[in-house]
């Protein structure tokens, strides 16, 4: 399941709704990414996507996760548009019979989202705006799965 939204979402509500649909799973792992304030350096984050391309890439990553781990189901909710400090950017949740598959597939999907998902981040703060691209550590994290 994938949703790309240009309005805020409530991760707690969405996770509860997800867990209601996974009654036959024994484990759910989730990750919520928030806009970091970075001690006042950031006041706003703007994310843009390439409609169509972004969705297709994430759907493929979810399919890869399902082939690699025995998942009951998986959920990705990702924001685009303007977000304030502390606002959720992303929610990933994976459900499986056992915890290891849920943990690992959630981690895998986040690594995909950080380095390969078709988004661009524009960080705005008191010193102006700059485009944020993945760090070397993000690419190293992703390469753990290859």
């Amino acid at each position: 399941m994938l949703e790309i939204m240009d309005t805020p979402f409530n991760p707690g509500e969405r996770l509860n709704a997800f867990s209601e649909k996974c009654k036959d799973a024994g484990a759910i792992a989730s990750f919520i990414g928030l806009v970091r304030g970075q001690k006042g350096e950031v006041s706003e984050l703007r994310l843009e996507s390439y409609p169509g391309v972004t969705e297709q890439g994430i759907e493929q990553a979810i399919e890869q996760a399902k082939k690699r781990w025995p998942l009951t189901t998986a959920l990705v909710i990702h924001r685009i548009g303007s977000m304030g400090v502390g606002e959720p950017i992303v929610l990933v949740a994976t459900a499986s019979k056992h915890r290891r598959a849920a943990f690992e597939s959630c981690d895998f999907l986040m690594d995909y989202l950080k380095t390969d998902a078709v988004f661009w981040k524009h960080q705005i703060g008191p010193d102006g705006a700059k485009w944020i691209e993945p760090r070397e550590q993000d690419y190293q994290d992703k390469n753990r799965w290859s």
Partner: protein
Amino acid sequence: MLKIYYFGRLSDRAGRREESLALPVGVNSVSTLKNWLDTKHGLGGALQDKSVKTMINQSLIHKDIVLQGDEEIGFLPPVGGG
């Protein structure tokens, strides 16, 4: 008409996020289009940067291809969400 999208930092360099144009005279491929756009918008070689990927009709291309003049072209600097 070509439909061209500039994403991320490239939209700052180009001063626009998208544009539509007819295939310019002397332009018949992705590489010649990149050179033409570079000159037109003063991009300083930004489209030729190895980190910038090109999509034609929403598919990534890995080599130069001939253009018909009705393609959607996306120029993608390094991506990342989360």
